[in-house]
């Protein structure tokens, strides 16, 4: 998969123009603080899309115990998404009535579950990042973000632990589980740089103390992931060229399919309450 070209201002202008002409559902009421809203959408969409992905496992996990754990992770994430999106506007409108160009999640969370090894690798990479980020965010100058992050950090501490335990078990388990874990790592590692990307929107929110700077958590993230992979007897993969774009609405092909399923009812019956 070649990396995407950087997003140019004129691309954004085109996207904006198309949006105004109604090709996509306009997001609910444009907020008065775009940098804050943008940041809330990034946090909320990451949680929502990963929560949706994990919920696909329900009833199909390798054991009843794993089924219970995956449902817990998914419930926590959907809960966090509800709170962040609720701060950005009407959470349900935002979840069910935006199209891909308006989603702000990173590529990692929208990746298909693959096998259990890929799901756990994805979760290790993401929850370690999310946990470090939420810990910082609990000191955000924005009280709502600080509150949601402080509550979320407690939940994510468990996600991080669970994912690390599984990656260790699978990496240092059988030949097959090791091969599958390596494969999952290869799949997911391409999307790591995006986690630490700071674009203009984010830089503005960081400057105002609303957002945490992901670059500051990168060394700790790398050492933590390195330690887990070491225990799993796996090498840390080499970094590849960044694949970026999710934060500005340019996603993998997978997100559209995920949304088609997730949004089907509110889209089909736009006047209905549920």
């Amino acid at each position: 998969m070649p990396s995407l070209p950087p997003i140019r201002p004129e691309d954004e202008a085109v996207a904006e123009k198309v949006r105004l002409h109604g090709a996509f559902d306009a997001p609910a009421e444009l907020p008065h603080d775009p940098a804050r809203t943008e940041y809330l959408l990034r946090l909320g969409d990451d949680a929502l899309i990963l929560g949706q992905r994990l919920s696909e496992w329900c009833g199909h996990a390798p054991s009843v115990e794993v089924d219970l754990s995956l449902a817990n992770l998914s419930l926590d994430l959907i809960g966090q998404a509800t709170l962040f999106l609720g701060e950005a506007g009407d959470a349900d409108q935002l979840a069910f009535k935006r199209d891909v160009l308006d989603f702000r999640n990173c590529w990692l969370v929208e990746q298909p579950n693959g096998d259990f090894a890929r799901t756990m690798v994805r979760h290790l990479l993401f929850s370690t990042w999310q946990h470090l980020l939420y810990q910082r965010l609990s000191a955000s100058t924005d009280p709502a973000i600080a509150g949601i992050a402080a509550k979320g950090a407690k939940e994510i501490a468990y996600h991080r632990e669970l994912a690390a335990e599984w990656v260790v078990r699978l990496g240092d388990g059988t030949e097959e589980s090791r091969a599958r874990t390596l494969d999952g790592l290869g799949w997911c590692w391409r999307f790591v740089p995006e986690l630490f990307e700071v674009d203009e929107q984010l830089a503005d929110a960081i400057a105002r103390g609303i957002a945490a700077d992901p670059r500051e958590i990168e060394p700790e993230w790398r050492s933590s992931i390195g330690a887990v992979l070491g225990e799993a007897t796996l090498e840390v993969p080499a970094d590849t060229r960044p694949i970026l774009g999710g934060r500005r609405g340019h996603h993998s092909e997978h997100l559209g399919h995920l949304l088609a399923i997730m949004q089907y009812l509110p889209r089909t019956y736009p006047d209905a309450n549920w």
Partner: protein
Amino acid sequence: MYTTELGKQPNVKPIGPAEDPALLEAFEARVAADEFIEPKDWMPEAYRRTLVRQISQHAHSEIVGMLPEGNWITRAPSLRRKQILLAKVQDEAGHGLYLYCAAETLGTSREEMIEALHSGKAKYSTIFNYPTLTWADIAAIGWLVDGAAIMNQVPLQRTSYGPYARAMVRVCKEESFHQRQGYEAMTELANGTAAQKRMAQDAFNRWWWPSLMMFGPPDENSPNTAQSMRWRIKRDTNDELRQKFVDITVPQAEYLGLTVPDSALKWNDDKGGYDFGEVDWDEFYAVVRGEGPVARERMTARREAWEQGAWVREAAAAHEAKRRKRAAA
């Protein structure tokens, strides 16, 4: 989610010479005095077998029962509904787990029980072999299927086998939330747009009769009821529970403006309950035999999850063995 006795043949074999009449008499007296029987206590073999079958059927029903509702988790129409549904299906997994544990106290391993499910030897509730076609099916399952489950399970909190009774206490608390959320979702649909009302009535039409079947065959055709009642494994007959369910549910349907799909339904003043039409028992037995519309899909999904998860379970065991070996070195 629920259990019922699905066997047509009497399963109580004559007590063999190995069973000491004095022990048997003492056991019967304890049960008659409503004492709990615990795993280490002496019990007749037929009691043990009946319980293993009933509890494992119940556990399998919880696990297979995750599938019809799981079918709508990714498509739940709001964040709140998605969280509720996911939490509910997760509860079913939890119920399955405590029930497998309760059955294991009787000396049968979880692997053996799962093997029996996958080979088709063990049964699970017929209700899960019907498809969930629209969102209203999720509402209908919560309201009707969990409603019937509660009615079956509340008496089991006083069942004679201790671990089963205690599992039921916890299960019943959660089931009552399940039923309430289903009725609430159905209320929203029944008061919603024309399309939602249509969905609601259609789901009600499809789930009503299978829900009545959940109480099991009519009493005259339920060979094990008498023995199970004497042993306090069961506390009410199938027909008593079915009647109670109809009497409670019909006014709930009327309140929602839904029509019960039974032209024979009529209030009977003398008995203080409803008269209702005959359940299609041929269909019930066909579904018990595995001929339900999505029986094959359900079993395939369970087998696939189990087989595709084999390498994960093997890896966990291999890692644990390595870890122990290192710790011992």
